[in-house]
């Protein structure tokens, strides 16, 4: 579909020709930003799992003191609007030179993913049989060994779901990228598309294919794992 066809005088309800060149042009322009987005999302996702998987195990089964306080704090952070984090992180990050770095963006994105991941993983682990872990410990495994050899394998479906969500949240993030990244070479996909609506009017032939392409990981995820999403979301949200 061409821009003239989209918004022109002789407009049709259904596009008459599909302009493949819009799509290839969008892919070409977006590719460097896809790399940034992939890097940020992948590192944020792995980092989130590294922090939250042991934490969920510790909180649910080891019952340390202060766990109720931590759980309440997680629920409260879910209620906080992004702006509560964006302003302090921008000010602090500009003092320690983390503005305009992908590491800064990753850390900022993790303020969204970590609380969410702990809530979902804790709910998941509550339903797993703790006897398996105890059995491993009777057999002489230390806490760390039991965690790696028993807890992680039996939690795998939950870890995969949470890992994918922790990938998709940074992937779709706009507010942190918009505030922390100004250098065009470091811009993730969403920011490049946002900037396409500049002062020179909107480049629809780039914006619409680009926006649709941005949704590809989410669509893939839904096709591959819709069953896990339904189970994971309902467990995390209601219990």
């Amino acid at each position: 579909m061409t821009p003239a066809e989209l918004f022109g005088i002789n407009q049709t309800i259904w596009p008459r020709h599909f302009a493949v060149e819009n799509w290839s042009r969008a892919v070409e322009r977006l590719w460097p930003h896809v790399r940034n987005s992939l890097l940020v999302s992948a590192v944020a996702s792995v980092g989130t799992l590294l922090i939250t998987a042991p934490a969920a195990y510790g909180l649910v089964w080891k019952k340390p003191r202060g766990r109720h306080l931590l759980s309440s704090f997680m629920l409260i952070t879910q209620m906080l609007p992004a702006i509560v984090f964006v302003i302090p992180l921008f000010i602090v990050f500009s003092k320690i030179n983390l503005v305009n770095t992908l590491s800064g963006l990753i850390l900022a994105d993790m303020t969204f993913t970590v609380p969410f991941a702990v809530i979902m993983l804790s709910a998941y682990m509550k339903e797993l049989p703790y006897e398996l872990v105890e059995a491993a410990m009777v057999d002489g495994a230390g806490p760390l060994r039991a965690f790696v050899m028993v807890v992680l394998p039996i939690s795998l479906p939950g870890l995969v779901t949470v890992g994918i969500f922790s990938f998709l949240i940074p992937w779709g993030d706009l507010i942190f990228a918009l505030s922390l990244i100004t250098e065009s070479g470091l811009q993730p996909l969403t920011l490049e598309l946002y900037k396409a609506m500049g002062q020179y009017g909107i480049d629809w032939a780039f914006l619409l294919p680009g926006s649709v392409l941005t949704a590809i990981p989410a669509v893939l995820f839904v096709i591959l794992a819709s069953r896990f999403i339904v189970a994971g979301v309902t467990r995390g949200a209601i219990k």
Partner: protein
Amino acid sequence: MMKATVANPSGSIASKARLDLSPYFFILPFVIFCLVLLLYPVAYSLALSFRQATVETFVSGDMPFNGFAQYQAALADPIFWRALVNTILFAFFSILFQFTIGFLLALLFQANFPLKNFCLALLLIPWVSPVLTAANIFKGLFNEAGPINRVFHIAGLGPFPWLADPVYAFPSTIVANIWIGFPFNFILLYAGMRSIPEDIYEAAKIDGATFWKRVTHITFPMLQPVSVAVLMLGTIYTVKVFDLVWIMTGGGPANGTHLLSTYAYQVGFSVLNFGQAAAIATLMVLLVLVLNLLQLFLKR
């Protein structure tokens, strides 16, 4: 824990202490993350709301304490009130329609039909996709010369200034948000309905209860805990909405579509008055708390 001690026959005080510490070892990275990247920014934001923090103070490095001046300035700004009313209306209408559509779809999905799982997966796409995708597509649909006006044109109406006039632009953003948010309501209500035991419906059917009677007398009351959770989560998420409105309208035209989130962002990053933006952020948190308490109260 007891068995773990047995597995460690040395039994000394030292080994017991080591075992007691292991939970803290597991949660340590998480606790550090919470302190540094969650608690510290929240405290910083709260502190900032009582300080004068603008471009000048940002450069000079000190941010003088000025009490409630930021709050007073925010409350004196008519755009703040517009944004507050908009946020409440945005949340109310979004949730009303998201919940209704989600509920009706969930009812529909209790029946079996071909390609059901495929349709279920398809319905999840608006929710897991980046908000930016939906925002840009709706921006295109609502464009003056876009497909929606084209349809109205065929009916002999319009063109309507969907995004160029606040009277139209605000409902347009709500429509887009309903589209993004209904799948979340749908999944939770769908799962909630599935957990209601089938025999209750069977018994009611034998007693001659109509479909609608069964919905109002069984589904509604038994789904209530789930509904409350859905509505509260919906409120939390909707008050937080930023990307959608920022992309579709940027709060305009004439500041008419600002939500508190976009207004706070504009004050922070366009006007560069961080202190006042932090004050608005604190007021937003209070709003979420009030709305949620109100819902809990209404449910009683």
